């Protein structure tokens, strides 16, 4: 599945594919529990990494991007179970992606493309 030709979009962030799939949505940067209220249905969750308290967010988001973590990190296990596109180990996603930025999370190839 390809939403639009990728060569017209800018690659912003790359990482390891933890759960395959493609999602489109607005980025929401979550640094701690105090940011949980920012998350809206269909957002792409951008975090350093997740812990079990994030359980209340997973049913709201369309995809997950983490800065650290491997194939068996918390975010990876959750996303594979729920079928959410997820890339992990991006290194600096929170620096590059901003709240509200529209992106395509291509978790087939491990790339986040900007739509703006």
């Amino acid at each position: 599945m390809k939403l639009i030709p990728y060569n017209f979009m800018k690659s912003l962030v790359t990482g390891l594919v933890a759960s395959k799939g493609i999602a489109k949505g607005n980025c929401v940067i979550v640094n701690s529990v105090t940011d949980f209220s920012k998350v809206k249905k269909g957002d792409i969750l951008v975090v350093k990494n997740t812990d079990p308290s994030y359980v209340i967010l997973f049913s709201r988001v369309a995809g997950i991007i983490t800065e650290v973590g491997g194939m068996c990190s918390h975010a990876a296990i959750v996303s594979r179970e729920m079928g959410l596109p997820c890339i992990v180990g991006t290194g600096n996603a929170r620096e590059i992606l901003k709240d509200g930025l529209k992106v395509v999370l291509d978790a087939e190839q491990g790339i986040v493309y900007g739509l703006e």
Partner: protein
Amino acid sequence: MDSNKMTDFFTSLTNAIDKTDSGTFWPGGGGQIGSSFLKVDARDLHNQLQALKKNKTASEATTYFYNPSTIRYVAVGNFIIGLKMLIRDNIITLDSAKESLDFFFDILDQKVSTDPFCLNNKNIWFNKNQINQVLNEVNFKKVDLVEQTVVSRLVIALNSLVWSFYYDIYVESGFEFHGPYSVEYENNEYKLIIRDYHDLRPAALWEKANNFGYKSIKLYLLYSDVNIGIDYFMHEFSDKPLRTNLAFCAVETVDTAGNTKFFPINEVTPIAESAEEIAFEQVNYVNQLETIEKINMGARICYYQLKSFRDALGINWEPPQEVFDLIKQKGLERWEKFKSRAEKISAGVAKIDWGSKYDLAKPI
């Protein structure tokens, strides 16, 4: 342990470690929590196994451990590294350490049906008869798209509850994820996975655990057309999303009064909601603890891993005061030191830490 088995052990461990990133462990990694007291922990278990070995065979001792992953986690958590430190410090002999470890792994061998170290990415706890019994007695329900989502939410909610009570590194105290078993059901081939959340109310550790309404929950899941793997640390991985490939499911609950019930799938959402709420509160509670309190609780959770074993031997399962004294002396220093090392562990390091040919031997 003979050399073939040792090779299996390292292959399996390396495969599992290769997929992890210890920097992401919540609320801290094994080195951060266990390094100040692992020698005491290993000494206690060593002495207890030596005593047990005089009266029981490995086969008889299997009843003291509910699930196989407890033995796997304890071995790699503190036991092997602690034994090596005890040998280095001339507290025990190499031969006696080997005896204890061999006996421990013999118990694991007896506990499982095939490979004890989850090579080939399988955690095969049940034998064919037990699986046939599951297929005959469990009331599987074919799931639709909505129910797939409901079950998926329940899985993540219960995982999160277990993670929140036992920290990332001791999860097997509350959970065994076993399979995949290749089975035939209603004339089709499936992969059976059993998620056994066997201790969801560890009130001896956390008062908050009393808020959850179920002692244990088992999920029996039949998947089609997906390759599912489980490694030494019960990490799961799959080539496709699990949710959309779930074909049949059954949810068996044991409530606080001990009543067992197969729950209709369309009625399990309140269980998931309760688990999510308690997990959320529990993680936030732990996060606001002082570091030293997190380590002290980590030590209690670590010792809780062997509660059933120590209960059976008539020994108090709680850590001895010595453990808390060591944490007071060295806990914060070790927490910080291992935090700075919290990066991907290479297979080479794994072999140095857990291998017989190497001696980690240098106290930090």
